């Protein structure tokens, strides 16, 4: 790519960022995970809650007083941020587990129906649709040690769709068909597609004219945004035995020439953005890093699944700054808003932590979490693993995943507006909390 094209892409990203509070997943094209919004220092009340027809794992985005998000009921919703009133809903043919991106008056998002949509952000009217080769979950024989061992089993924890990033007149996203796509943001025409070896449900990030995204094929890729040519690839861990410790589900963040990404091989990696060489990694002893890191002021904020750790490490060295044990798996990504870090937990709570000490300042708990149907949680709100995961049959895992929904698990990443936090829950509600 020539210098002017890089400059044009960078400028486009900068313009898109400054024009909106949080127009795409992780706030900006580099996925910093930093919010310009002001987070409340105490929980006062649920300002409103917006019910949908199924679980919400999509994360909300916001611009000019409108909040957009997807639901597994197949709809993309636009809601008035002040009142919680529905502005429009657009029905797709499958669950919308990705987070929309807003740019130039259009909303972009993929659906479980295998189509990628561009809608008028104000009205929900279809601008164009692009058909991928079809969505699918990551799957493997006897995945996670489940039975039947020889059968291809879809991964119940492959919950997210790839969220698009928009820059330089293109929209970039990954797909269950193994490809990373670049489409013309105005017309929906294919500019290029890049084939990986497996499902791409991580969300691409973009910096300096390079698209960065991980695949479930165990590789993390850097791709020239203009041409679609591979610049480098980084190899994460593999797991030929039970296919548990493999794949990039976490979405990358880029800061100061370093790409930070979690991986199911239980590492958080820092990779040189120019060369693809590893700078450091933090190993989490078998616990997935699905949460996407946030990077600000020389620190990286991330969380782990099974070990339920909230962690802060030095961005240059990976040395620990802060580590706190939470109560349940963490898939949601931390959002840094001033001196507060917000984080969703699968036990149905949203936490606001002091950025310096890591202490929980306040916590919101969904109704499902309070009622605890099926004793999914222990009395002190840890995940009740010994009751929830009793056998290794595939069917039992599906039942466990369904029961987990009942406590209003928070997979969605919070969005911080002016004194209000918006987040989706598997109980089907989008909550506005102040």
């Amino acid at each position, binding site marked *: 790519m020539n210098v002017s094209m890089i400059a044009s892409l960078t400028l486009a990203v900068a313009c898109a960022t400054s024009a909106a509070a949080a127009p795409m997943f992780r706030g900006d094209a580099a996925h910093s995970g930093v919010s310009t919004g002001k987070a409340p220092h105490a929980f006062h009340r649920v300002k409103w809650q917006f019910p949908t027809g199924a679980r919400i794992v999509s994360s909300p985005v916001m611009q000019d007083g409108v909040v957009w998000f997807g639901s597994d009921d197949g709809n993309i919703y636009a809601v008035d941020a002040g009142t919680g009133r529905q502005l429009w809903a657009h029905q797709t043919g499958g669950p919308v587990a990705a987070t929309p991106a807003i740019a130039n008056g259009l909303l972009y998002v993929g659906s479980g129906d295998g189509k990628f949509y561009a809608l008028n952000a104000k009205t929900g009217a279809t601008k164009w649709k692009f058909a991928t080769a079809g969505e699918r979950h990551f799957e493997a024989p*006897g995945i*996670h*040690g*489940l039975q039947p061992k020889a059968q291809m089993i879809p991964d119940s924890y492959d919950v997210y769709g790839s969220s698009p990033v928009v820059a330089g007149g293109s929209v970039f996203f990954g797909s269950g068909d193994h490809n990373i796509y670049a489409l013309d943001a105005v017309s929906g025409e294919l500019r290029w597609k890049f084939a990986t070896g497996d499902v791409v449900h991580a969300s691409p990030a973009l910096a300096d004219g390079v698209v960065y995204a991980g695949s479930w094929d165990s590789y993390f890729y850097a791709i020239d945004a203009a041409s679609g040519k591979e610049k480098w690839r980084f190899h994460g861990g593999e*797991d030929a*035995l*039970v296919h548990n*410790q493999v794949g990039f589900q976490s979405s990358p963040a880029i800061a100061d020439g370093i790409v930070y990404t979690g991986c199911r091989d239980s590492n958080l990696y820092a990779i040189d953005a120019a060369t693809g060489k590893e700078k450091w990694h933090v190993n989490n002893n078998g616990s997935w890093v699905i949460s996407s890191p946030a990077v600000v002021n020389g620190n990286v904020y991330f969380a782990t699944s099974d070990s339920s750790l909230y962690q802060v490490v030095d961005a240059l060295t990976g040395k620990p700054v802060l580590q706190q044990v939470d109560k349940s798996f963490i898939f949601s990504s931390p959002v840094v808003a001033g001196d507060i870090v917000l984080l969703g937990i699968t036990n149905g709570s949203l936490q606001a932590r002091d950025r310096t000490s890591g202490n929980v300042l306040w916590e919101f708990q969904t109704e499902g979490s309070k*009622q*605890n*149907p*099926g*004793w999914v949680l*222990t*009395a*002190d709100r*840890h995940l*009740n*693993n*010994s*009751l929830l995961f*009793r*056998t*290794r*049959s595939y069917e*039992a895992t599906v039942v466990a995943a369904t*029961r987990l929904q*009942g406590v209003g698990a928070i997979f969605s990443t919070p969005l911080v507006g002016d004194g209000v936090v918006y987040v989706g829950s598997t109980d089907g509600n989008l909550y506005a909390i102040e």
Partner: protein
Amino acid sequence: MRRIVVLASGLALALSGHAADIAGRWQGSAQIPGLPLQLTVDLDRDASGNWVGSIIIPELAMKGQPLMDIAAHDAAVAFAIKGALVEAKAEPAKFEAQLDSDATMHGRFTQAGNSAPFTLKRIGPAQVDLPPRSTAVAKELEGQWVGEYELMGYPRHVTVTFTNHEGAPASVEFVIVGKKHNDLPVDFVNQSEGIVRIESHEIGINFEGRLRPGSSELAGTYEQGPIELPLVLHRPNGSGQ
């Protein structure tokens, strides 16, 4: 012999004072919100007069799980589930009840700090599922065996030592050395039809193997949770034991 057992049982009953007779098969339910559990509880006395029991809960894929801490004093009944529905170092899942009559009891089921009411009705004689017992091993298995397997790219060295004891089950030392030295607590060893099985319930690691005919190899499978790997044990340095 039968007379001695009966006398011993009578003595145990007498020592417990007002012990209630709760022997039998009991059926009912626990009212966990959103997940009512069907319960089948079998309680009986063993030859020594001690209570033994097991439980069936289909909703939790549980059949024949052993019970422990079984007590019946006056109208108060209590028992707990052994080895399931509990995290390490936590309180076991417990049932505490009152006998309403000879044939019904009601109380609270507590697990992981959560509590729900339950009721049970006696429907017939007990059918307790007794867990398999450890046994002695064949003489040719006694002594030390070594082997190696690889997990996640790292070699692990295994040493298994069988020791028989007069009139008692064999004991086993089960050591795995990888990044760390792990001396696994073995709580079950059984040899039947030529197959020997070692289980460490606490760690979740098992080995099952068979002596290869005409060789000094104990060939089998290492099991760690969902992972199964072939593991062949042999005598150290080709020694006889």
